[in-house]
């Protein structure tokens, strides 16, 4: 599903943010990427969504070499990746429904289907009752859940989330993570960057540890 081959990313400052990272993620797997701040977690996710391109090495998504994905194909790749952001990045001038419907509008989904699928996604994150609400009137946790609904409404095979629980209290964080774990159950691959070690230990999922851009550990806490 996702493969990194000796990937390095160097910004103009000359520092390798990602250095010779190789790993593979199978379809339906849920993987955490962790490390101190500045370890390269966000950059790694950006390489997957083609927000950045690697300086060296190759990234494959669904068997496709991202180096060959250019121009119009970039948008098409991103439609197959649901992205969740720490600051949720909802459009504040639109209702919850319209925010979640955006990916479907982009792909030109027929009107009749949009309503059904948006409600299904909102139902999954437990916000069906708030579809007419404005994002500002929601709590931080609810806003994050709307962001997740937007990421899953297009039924992408891969979800990437950058610190999705960064602004949430431990209880809410666990709820959100369990939500992601549910998607993994139905075959969606999930890649989450998080520095919350306590939370990761409770999830019992595979963890990739980055340190100064290098992959220093790949383990599964609590696994038999």
């Amino acid at each position, binding site marked *: 599903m996702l493969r990194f081959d000796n990937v390095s990313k160097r910004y103009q400052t000359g520092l390798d943010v990602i250095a010779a990272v190789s790993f593979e993620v199978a379809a339906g797997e849920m993987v955490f990427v962790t490390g101190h701040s500045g370890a390269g977690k966000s950059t790694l996710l*950006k390489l997957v*969504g*083609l*927000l*950045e*391109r690697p300086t060296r090495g190759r990234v494959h998504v669904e068997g496709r070499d991202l180096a060959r994905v*250019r*121009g*119009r194909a*970039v*948008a*098409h*790749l*991103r*439609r*197959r*990746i649901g*992205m969740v952001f720490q600051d949720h*990045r909802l*459009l504040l*001038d639109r209702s919850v429904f319209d925010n979640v419907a*955006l*990916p479907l*509008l*982009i*792909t*030109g*989904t*027929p*009107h009749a289907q949009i309503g059904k699928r948006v409600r299904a996604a909102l139902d999954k994150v437990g916000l069906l009752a708030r579809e007419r609400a404005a994002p500002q009137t929601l709590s931080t946790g609810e806003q994050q859940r709307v962001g997740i609904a*937007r990421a899953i409404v*297009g*039924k*992408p*095979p891969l979800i990437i989330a950058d610190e999705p629980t960064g602004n949430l209290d431990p209880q809410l964080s666990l709820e959100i993570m369990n939500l992601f774990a549910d998607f993994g159950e139905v075959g969606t691959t999930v890649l989450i960057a998080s520095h919350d070690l306590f939370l990761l230990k409770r999830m019992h999922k595979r963890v990739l540890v980055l340190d100064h851009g290098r992959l220093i550990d790949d383990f599964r806490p609590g696994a038999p």
Partner: protein
Amino acid sequence: MVGKAPRRTGDPATTPDAAPRAPRRRWRERAAAWRDQHLYSFFSSLGRLAARPFASALTVLVLGLALALPLLFWLAFDNARHWSGGLREARDITVFLDPAADAPAAQALAAELRGRADVAAVLVRTPEQGLAEFRQLAGFGAALDAMADNPLPSVLVVTPAASAAGYDPPLVGELRGDARIDLVQYDATWGRKLTGILEFGERLVTVLAALLAAATVLVIGNTVRMDIQTRREEVSVMQLIGASDGFVRRPFLYAGLWYGLLGALLALAVVGLLEFALAAPLERLLGAWTDAQAARGLGAGAALGVLAAGATLGWLGAYLVVARHLAAGRPGA
């Protein structure tokens, strides 16, 4: 009329759940989606304009005046050309014979001129006809009665053949050299000057129109650029979740189209208002001069053309700016 529609953006064939269907059904669905997206952009962009009435009105006002200016010039010159048409075509040569020449001599010369290839017609006006004409003009009656005999010469009105008409046909020179002729009057010079003025005016209107069209494109481009600035977050989110360039571009293109269309409408209103305000005095002025009818306004075809031009310029201005922004803001691609 509203410019070329952007390329269809969504390709349902690549969406995750596009199950194989009958080709016709899929084509129909895609066409419906395309139409929905355009209708949505068409109206939502208008809604955005309405959401900021002051800023939008200001832009539309600037555009309206910028578009009205060349229109007004064009109308003025169109009318001038029309009114002067009769004058420019006055190519008759008036030939005053020597006062000593009698009626048969005048007829003989007329017959001689009629025989020429470059003469279309010759009208003979005897001194008696001239006198009668003078008498009709008020005030001349008494003065003419005081004269013992008719002082007027015979006059030939020579119409050159169309092929021989020009600024200075050789016919005029030959007539001037004829001993039997006292005076030759040919008003080509004035017509030539008028033609020069009108040609210059037309060129001026063209240049002004081009300049103001460029200004229109820039004003709309700048407005749309500020639009993009305020919606930068929205654009970036759309790009992140897989919106194609066309999808991101479309609402801005429609906004540009609306600006251009509304500006053109305002320009037409300005022109119409001026036509209305000037119609009565202009008619009086013209009535005193010529037998020309009312001033020529802007026809329905021209008005539609102005609307189409405004919309096209708006679309173009928006396109230039958005294209630049998309190229600059495309992350890592």
